[in-house]
């Protein structure tokens, strides 16, 4: 434990800490461009120079390990002069185009030039100019502004795991580019925009649309996958202008996926902004009162068993709770939140959570992935697995598809047969799991949303039990969800009651006439043509799949337009906050259900505001009050042991950029789908 003195303050730090990190510990700010705490140390910008006593010249603090008895000064005239010199060199070739630069106002170089810039130039020669590089549909480049910190190069290599960015040429002719200017094929590529300390890499969709200081900011939670990445929604007036990550070490660290960051333009297109009622076979604009009256006319008097409700992937906890209560009032047991038909067991909480937690991946030392492609189902979790894999001593086995992941793995087999072999100990990977201290298993929705899903779940549980995945302080049994709503729905018990129908039963019932009314809450990823015979009420934000056979459309709010609770795949309860109001007549979802209830059998639901509704939820699901926390679930026996099928496991997500109505309405996602997805399939840069 080296002890050193920084500006007269003595501090003891862990071995391996750099001088720059030690400075941060004592609260001394050191300017930097190339250093980033989540990337390897490059030491090439030289901005972090500090003075070390007995050293002949200033040292780059980011690359100097802290050692015993070091005496560091960061506020001497020599340090200031050295940094001013570095800044002067950096500015030699940096254009003074801040007024037309999207980074302006949130630029490290701009900020630090306030402290270390000279105000006037001594450089009268020509500045160099560098041609723009194409990096794909998301990243706009102005390479003349590049200061060659290589953060983007290191990010692509280390975090994203796609070595596609590099520095070509040398000296004054060095340029950052992707290989032959191809689009970067990472689902995390947008993070290089945040990493770039200058305006060389900026957001292409956001280009020239707003200045950072004129935006209002709301902290919220992402819903494009089940990770629950922490985000900041920047908006101006009625419009969401961009989405940025928020730091959360337990979930997304400081990264977000491209889908999270760039699907926001889908919030402006294809929106449902007023109620519709089908009259004479055609959907016609209506008032809320007309829509509610049409529903009441159909539903009141109908036996509860003929009514059903399905909650989709983007339904928030509050609206699902309200809808569940409404269905109980109507006497219907036919409710289901497992839109994809996954055989998840709502009665055992541990059976559907990512129990180890995302941060728990750091502690694991063996991993078995079953029927999942984490890279496209949850890019953030995939990055965490890669981070752990880079640390070494982490064997990964995959059963299911053979995707190109960003880490090496042992491919064990395609289907349930291999799963059975591992469970019975007959497979060689069983030894790896047995020898591990903290082994974990990740079961994807692709392995559960099938006829033998319950048996697969049981086999996975058996593996967890057999190989010591469940021990004191460690639960390595993980289910990876793809929908932001799913865990919330299961926690609420939004599953069929006594004798109730599940999703498949509801669809079949609608075809046969056994079910006459189907309420779709943000449910779009269904074969809605099977609902043709039924009276369909669609509540949601976008005119997507769900409205195609709807008789009543109730315009709801998207995730940026409501205060709502989301429970991620770990079971972590997080609050999303409203940035903008829903468009037109659209309303927050729970209020629609509450307003509708007034005219229906069973009467008004007993909550008039969000607080009352949340208290009602907390009465049933106690852990929702533990905001931002994961309440561990008790281990039990779940799943139904039974014969496993033969069909190979397939990932639940086939089109990463088009998984929900918001993405499908987004032009940016459509372009990513067209440009990046074929490139990911077509080339393996590792040969």
């Amino acid at each position, binding site marked *: 434990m080296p002890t050193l003195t920084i500006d007269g303050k003595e501090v003891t730090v862990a071995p391996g800490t750099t001088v720059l990190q030690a400075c941060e510990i004592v609260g001394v700010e050191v300017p930097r461009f190339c250093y980033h705490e989540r990337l390897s140390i490059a030491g090439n910008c030289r901005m972090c120079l500090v003075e070390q006593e007995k050293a002949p010249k200033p040292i780059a603090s980011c690359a100097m390990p802290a050692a015993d008895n070091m005496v560091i000064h960061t506020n001497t005239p020599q340090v200031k002069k050295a940094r001013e010199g570095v800044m002067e060199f950096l500015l030699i070739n940096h254009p003074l185009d801040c007024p037309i630069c999207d980074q302006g106002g949130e630029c490290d170089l701009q900020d630090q030039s306030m402290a270390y810039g000279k105000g006037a130039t001594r450089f009268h020669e020509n500045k160099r100019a560098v041609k723009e590089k194409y990096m794909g549909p998301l990243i706009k480049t102005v390479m003349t502004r590049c200061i060659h910190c290589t953060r983007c190069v290191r990010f692509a290599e280390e975090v994203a795991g796609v*070595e*596609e*960015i*590099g*520095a*070509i*040429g*040398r000296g004054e*002719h060095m340029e950052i580019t*992707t*290989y*032959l200017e191809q689009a970067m094929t990472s689902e995390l590529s947008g993070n290089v925009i945040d990493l770039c300390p200058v305006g060389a890499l900026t957001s292409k969709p956001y280009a020239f649309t707003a200045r950072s200081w004129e935006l209002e900011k709301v902290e919220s939670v992402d819903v494009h996958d089940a990770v629950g990445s922490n985000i900041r929604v920047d908006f101006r007036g009625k419009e969401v202008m961009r989405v940025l990550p928020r730091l959360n070490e337990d979930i997304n660290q400081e990264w977000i996926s491209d889908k999270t960051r760039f699907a926001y333009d889908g919030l402006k297109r294809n929106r449902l902004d007023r109620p519709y009622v089908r009259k004479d076979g055609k959907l016609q604009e209506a008032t809320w009162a007309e829509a509610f009256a049409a529903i009441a006319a159909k539903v009141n008097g109908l036996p509860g068993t003929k009514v059903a409700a399905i909650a989709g992937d983007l339904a928030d906890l509050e609206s699902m709770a309200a809808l569940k209560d409404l269905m109980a009032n109507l006497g219907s047991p036919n409710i289901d939140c497992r839109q994809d038909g996954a055989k998840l067991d709502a009665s055992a909480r541990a059976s559907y959570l990512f129990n180890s937690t995302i941060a728990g991946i750091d502690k694991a030392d063996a991993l078995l992935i079953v029927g999942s492609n984490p890279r496209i189902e949850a890019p953030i979790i995939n990055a965490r697995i890669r981070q752990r894999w880079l640390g070494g001593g982490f064997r990964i086995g995959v059963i299911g598809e053979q995707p190109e992941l960003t880490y090496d793995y042992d491919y064990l087999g395609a289907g349930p047969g291999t799963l059975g072999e591992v469970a019975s100990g007959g497979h060689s990977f069983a030894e790896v799991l047995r020898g591990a201290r903290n082994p974990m298993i990740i079961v994807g929705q692709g392995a559960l949303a099938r006829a033998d899903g319950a048996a697969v779940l049981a086999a996975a549980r058996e593996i967890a039990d057999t190989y010591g995945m469940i021990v004191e302080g460690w639960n390595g049994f993980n289910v990876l969800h793809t929908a932001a709503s799913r865990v919330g729905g299961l926690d609420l018990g939004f599953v069929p009651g006594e004798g109730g129908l599940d999703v498949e039963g509801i669809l079949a019932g609608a075809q046969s006439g056994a079910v006459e009314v189907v309420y779709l809450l943000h449910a779009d990823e269904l074969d809605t043509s099977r609902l043709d015979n039924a009276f369909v009420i669609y509540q949601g934000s976008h005119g997507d799949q769900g409205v195609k056979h709807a008789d009543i459309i109730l315009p709801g709010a998207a995730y940026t337009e409501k205060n709502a609770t989301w429970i991620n795949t770990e079971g972590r309860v997080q609050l999303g906050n409203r940035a903008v109001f829903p468009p037109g007549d659209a309303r927050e979802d729970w209020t629609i259900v509450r307003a509708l209830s007034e005219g229906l059998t069973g009467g008004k639901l007993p909550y008039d505001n969000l607080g009352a509704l949340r208290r009602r939820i907390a009465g049933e699901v106690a852990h929702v009050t533990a905001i931002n926390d994961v309440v561990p679930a008790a281990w039990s026996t779940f799943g139904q042991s039974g014969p496993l099928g033969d069909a190979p496991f397939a990932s639940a997500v086939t089109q990463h950029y088009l998984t929900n109505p918001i993405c499908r309405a987004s032009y940016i996602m459509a372009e990513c789908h067209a440009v990046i997805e074929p490139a990911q399939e077509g080339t393996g*840069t*590792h*040969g």
Partner: protein
Amino acid sequence: MSGVHAAPFVQPASFEFTPESMEQVNRHIAKYPKGRQQSAVMPLLDIAQRQNGGWLPEAAIRAIGELLGMPYIRVYEVASFYTMYNLVPVGRHFVQVCTTTPCWLRGSDQVMEACRQSLGVRNGHTSADGQFTLIEVECLGACVNAPMMQIGDDFYEDLDADSTRRILDDLKAGRTPAPGPQIDRQFSAPEGGPTTLKETA
């Protein structure tokens, strides 16, 4: 990346090492421990360049990346960093005239001018018949025999305008001029023969 200006050209779609090249390639790869084959990237680039008439096509970069298990961009970084790799086609005789200070003081301007006139091309360009590419380069490390130029693998030293012209004429005629000092000097010994250490023990 050398400063050669190429006329528009077509990148070959594929590149394959010949069996002879492959033998050398394997010899270089074998020098490094398993898992560290990437260390052989520079000799491999050189072998590919020699095989391909003095320049490295993009297909060769990919081929080497695949051979060594390296991402293409990493191979490209190396190939673009060193000036000795040509990423665009060059003439059969690649004439590099050193114009760094010692050579310049000793008359590299005349050497360069002689090349320009003899070959009829500007700095960085290739003659119309595709035989010669002329380029000014930084120090090639033969200052003791300045001024000098490198053609292919050979150094021609102690040049003046006349000897430069003669060498280029020889090459044009298909002859192979003798490399090394073009005056009465052995290697880097003093002009006219050694002045010290004449007696051998």
